């Protein structure tokens, strides 16, 4: 993995540090089982991580759904984690 890619992924990992323990646990499980993320996956994940904690938790816990077809797959992976 080149340095730029590594830094991008590390930044994503850091942005998974959240205000809510609920999300910390979900993302910890996710990274443990994530395997390789494509560049598209990284973009989608970055968009999700830009959300407010409660909105993100609502999405991950199934209280809301996303209209964004690109995000659906990633949300499902987070729910399964």
């Amino acid at each position: 993995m080149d340095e730029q890619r590594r830094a991008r992924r590390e930044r994503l990992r850091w942005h998974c540090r959240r205000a809510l323990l609920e999300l910390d646990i979900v993302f910890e499980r996710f990274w443990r089982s994530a395997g390789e993320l494509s560049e598209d996956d990284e973009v989608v994940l970055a968009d999700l991580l830009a959300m407010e904690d409660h909105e993100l938790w609502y999405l991950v816990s199934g209280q809301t759904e996303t209209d964004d077809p690109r995000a659906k797959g990633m949300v499902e992976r987070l729910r399964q984690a």
Partner: protein
Amino acid sequence: MSVTVRTFDAVIVGAGGAGLRAAIQLSESGFKTAVLTKVFPTRSHTVAAQGGVAASLGNSEEDHWHWHMYDTVKGSDWLGDQDAIEFMCRKANECVIELEHYGMPFDRTDAGKIYQRPFGGHMSNFGEKPVRRSCAAADRTGHAMLHAMYQRNVKANTQFFVEWMALDLVRDAEGEVLGVTAMDMETGEIVVFHAKATIFATGGAGRIFHSSTNAFINTGDGLGMAARAGIPLEDMEFWQFHPTGVAGAGVLITEGVRGEGGILRNGQGERFMERYAPNAKDLASRDVVSRAMVTEINEGRGCGPNKDFVLLDITHLEPATIMKRLPGIREIAIQFAGVDPIKEPIPVVPTCHYQMGGIPTNYHGQVVVPQGDAKAAVVPGFYAAGECACASVHGANRLGTNSLLDLLVFGKSAGETAVEELKKSAKAHKPLPQGEIDRALARVNRLDTQTTGADVHETRIAMQRAMQNHCGVFRFADKLKEGVGKILEVEQQVRNTVIRDKSKVFNTARVEALELENLIEVAVATMISAEARKESRGAHVRDDATDTPEHPDGRDDAHWLKHTLWYKEGNRLDYKPVTLTPLSVDTIALKKRAY
């Protein structure tokens, strides 16, 4: 090695509630203020505070700050300083209304006033009956508070340094604090923030325990930095265990659930709190409820195949009430406990939640340490507020919803005091001592160059297990003694950690190793302080200090009505008296704490 120096009037470390409130005070007074934060401000752990903020507004029924003060002193098991507690309770209404004016969307009554809900330990007329004192914004009180205060800071031109980690205090030979060293996570660059006022608002260190309601970000960075700079940590043996963490996950079920009518039941379906707290029942103080739960479990009346949890029952509430007044609770129960609380009760256990101790301060937010004959001499240039500080208003046990109040009142107070001191100070900044800067550089340099040693993740788990097993909600003399040895062993491992990734740019492994160096200071302080305190008081409950006529609930005022001070150097302990004299009213006299 030379490092870049950036100069400010004030530097604040941490952008949760206390940091943002302090920053408003400084920036609106025209002082050049930097706020350093590991995560974006509105992602601070204050977001997780759901229950509300205490203020005796009396919007729903008669209330008074003096009753609030009484509840806080009683909740603290008389270890709280009564001057600071009076200050906080008297300032509560002003701070809450100020927040409302910042745009905080509090829940409303039909008459348009701030809605107030009942909460554990909130009583009217000096402990007579429950009173509605908690002001909330649905279950998002902390979140709404951060947004309101962040916007106010943006307007006031506070300069935020996001994804920066503070490394160490800079203190000169006279003991004055002149700022901090900090690392830009984006580039790995280390910079000195040179300031006349340094305010720590770094939150708690709940991650020292294996089972915790705290988010991963709560690594006690301010406490670690203070300890390394020779500042003692006060009353670190006192950790509040929240009665209702989801069994097996730690995720918090807010006390508001019991405020809205939730009932705790044991394996026989009995509402056991009626036996432990006949008046307050399920709304008794947190440590009383936690202790009752653990007693039920220890005496074989727990639930599940291992009888190792109790149940929080809201099945008798209308589903519409649950959805309206307690949104999100259902999903947490489904996700982390696998039960729908509308149909089935939620399995819960006491889980580490809040740090009562911290960096010693007075009620002006100034850090104070023993010096010569003085037990509380001000450390010039250094302030602390919120969970990282010990004013001490929570004493041996915090009253629910006083945490958000603490960060509002003492964030503001620290900011106000800093403003007054800045107005009096010389124009020029004092020169920086190079040796102090080198101390932070050396810690980072060790991680960058060391090629063999202990794994950071494994070492953190070892620390958390040692704390959980030896210093949990119930404490035993032999376990504590053994725990001191174990945690000192882990401390040696922490000094010898290795990271594989040596890159500069966004190196999260390095950040986590540095966080562990802060956590371990808190863990050692906690274990050593707990082992030494031979009584039970508030959240510190020892098996060998039980309820006797001479020592009700194991509390020994003759020997232990005093604050612990732990010093990193030599793991030395010192003690200082509790302030029993309030500012304007009579002392709230010692008595047995019963609900």
